């Protein structure tokens, strides 16, 4: 009888090239995703040292952070254009496949990896982007890296890595109607804080995780980094395999059958030991809204903004005060009484077809409130096409939402899609940091349903009774 192992240990054992006592290991990277913002300095580094890309076929690039979502073929910002042109030239020079502007597969890097079948169980996946954890939904070990490491992976197809500690996030129970994967991950971070995962890889287990679609699993893995963890994953099962089958870069025929056996064998064994375990009961989770400037500053929809006077420590008190000041909120107000001016449905957290369907499902012929500007930004060209085939674009447009071109858009407001100073946005993205969606912009993180409902009501509402 062999010692039971977690999926993280199995992937680690499979991909370590070399290790010696007292040093990190050299870990082989199976898929390197690249985008325009964190790669130019890395390619330049290769050029300066006369180095090449070791495995262009295990590298895949797209443009997402900087792309305009209106009139996408016209890039008005010259600096953004230079960055995108630079990626195109770099990909040509180093033979890296690119789904750039105008390509049928262009989109947010963490949306296109899975939809093209590039993301697969057991792969080690890196990208110069902290939300690379998204790909963990497939049972891949996927984590964000900085630009120096991007250059390192381009040159060597490896990274130096300490064997990660494992944290079992066990989520049992059943999600209630109107409660989503987004609410689960927000509730989890709210319960345990923004750094409970630091130094660990999170493995999401339990009945509630098993019952999630791949889209839902991507949403929770995506926000692992908001809990401090570089990576979060879910052991692969039939849901995973069914999602991958038939996709462009997925193995075909006999190869698929072999791959499937290998993938399913990676699941964490019964009795595998984790370094730490935390739990959450999905049945108790309600729709969530963040009120502050980090994702743990979050409350259920039918509750009140906290009062700094009730904080346990002086530090907590100051943090709440600071956040309330930035957010322009008074203590103790009902979150449902807070009016909003903007709604953003999109980002690598919540821009897939299922997210858009769920958002559209709350419209019921109603219109976006006169005081609200609401935009829907599909995660990729493929998502956009599929959503349009389902008629979702028409539903949104008729209700008064803007239907945009794919990209990261208002999640980080790099492309000009920004929330104006002191205005408030219900956003399906992942970070409510100060200035994230625009200078002095006030972000409230919610699920797609909650965002769509807020767009119609003009303030936060409980989607379960909307």
């Amino acid at each position, binding site marked *: 009888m062999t010692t039971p192992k977690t999926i993280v240990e199995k992937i680690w054992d499979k991909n370590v090239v*070399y290790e010696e006592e007292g040093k990190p290991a050299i870990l082989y990277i199976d898929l390197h995703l690249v985008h325009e913002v964190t790669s130019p300095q890395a390619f330049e580094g290769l050029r300066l040292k006369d180095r090449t890309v070791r495995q262009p076929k295990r590298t895949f690039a797209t443009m997402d952070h900087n792309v305009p979502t209106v009139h996408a073929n016209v890039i008005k910002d010259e600096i953004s254009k230079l*960055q995108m042109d630079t990626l195109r030239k770099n990909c040509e020079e180093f033979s890296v496949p690119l789904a750039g502007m105008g390509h049928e597969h262009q989109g947010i890097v963490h949306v296109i990896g899975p939809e093209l079948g590039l993301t697969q169980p057991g792969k080690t996946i890196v990208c*110069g982007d902290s939300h690379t954890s998204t790909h963990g939904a497939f049972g891949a070990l996927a984590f964000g890296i900085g630009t*120096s490491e991007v250059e*390192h992976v381009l040159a060597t*197809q490896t990274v130096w890595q*300490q064997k990660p500690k494992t944290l079992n996030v066990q989520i049992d129970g059943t999600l209630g109607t109107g409660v989503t994967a987004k609410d689960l991950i927000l509730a989890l971070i709210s319960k345990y804080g923004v750094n409970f995962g630091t130094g660990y890889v999170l493995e999401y287990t339990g009945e509630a995780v098993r019952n999630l679609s791949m889209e839902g699993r991507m949403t929770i893995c995506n926000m692992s980094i908001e809990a*401090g963890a570089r990576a979060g994953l879910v052991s692969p099962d039939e849901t995973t395999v069914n999602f991958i089958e038939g996709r462009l870069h997925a193995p075909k025929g006999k190869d698929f059958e072999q791959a499937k056996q290998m993938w399913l064998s990676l699941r964490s064994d019964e009795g595998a030991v984790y370094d730490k375990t935390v739990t959450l009961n999905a049945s108790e989770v309600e729709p969530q809204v963040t009120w502050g400037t980090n994702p743990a500053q979050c409350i259920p929809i039918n509750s009140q903004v906290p009062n700094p006077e009730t904080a346990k420590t002086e530090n907590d008190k100051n943090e709440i005060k600071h956040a309330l000041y930035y957010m322009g909120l008074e203590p103790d107000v009902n979150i449902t009484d807070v009016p909003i001016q903007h709604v953003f449905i999109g980002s690598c957290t919540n821009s897939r077809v299922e997210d858009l369907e769920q958002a559209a499902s709350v419209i019921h012929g109603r219109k976006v409130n006169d005081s609200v500007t609401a935009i829907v930004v599909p995660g990729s060209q493929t998502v956009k096409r599929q959503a349009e085939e389902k008629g979702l674009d028409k539903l949104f447009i008729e209700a008064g939402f803007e239907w945009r071109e794919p990209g990261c858009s208002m999640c980080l407001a790099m492309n000009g899609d920004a929330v104006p100073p002191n205005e408030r946005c219900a956003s399906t993205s992942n970070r409510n940091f*100060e*200035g994230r969606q625009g200078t002095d912009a006030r972000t409230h993180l919610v699920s797609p349903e909650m965002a769509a409902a807020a767009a119609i009501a003009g303030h936060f509402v409980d989607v379960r009774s909307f």
Partner: protein
Amino acid sequence: MEPLKMHTGLVYPLNRSNVDTDQIIPKQFLKRISRQGFGQYLFYNWRFDEKDRPREDFSLNDPKYKGTSILVGGENFGCGSSREHAPWALEDYGFRIIIAPSFADIFYNNCTKNGILPVVLTEDEVQTLIDNAEKGDYHLTVDLENKAVTDNHSFKATFDLAEYSRQMLLNGWDEISVTLTYEDKITEFEKEHIVY
């Protein structure tokens, strides 16, 4: 990168938890394609108002911290985005050492690749340093050979750092060159490794 063995410098206290990389370097400055020149944009939205004038209420603008090279911050320093522009901005501004009770993983890693030493001390030690530094003209010496932090008075603390990172920083090695000495092992591995 420049080797770092011992560093003595003026301390700047930033008494906030969860300082994220969006604060360290806001997204509007991520469009540049070079590694240089990010220091002027460090903590931009805290340092400057909407008309690009220095904000008086942000402590880094206080003349008493001019020429500072050691930043002491709160827990979970550098959380959020993986942007390496954050350590580039800190380094370009003049910071060589960041001291905090805890760091976000990616940021910590990015610092060590750019000649910035991240030092983890206990919450009490960090609080002592913040209290001292807030009075101004407070200097620390950080000794990477002996993994120790001292001031001119009685403060002395030791810290842990992975030996690999310590050697990289002490020697200022180019990591890719180091890895390429193992290239035959990578080639050998690739022959047997199956990726679907």
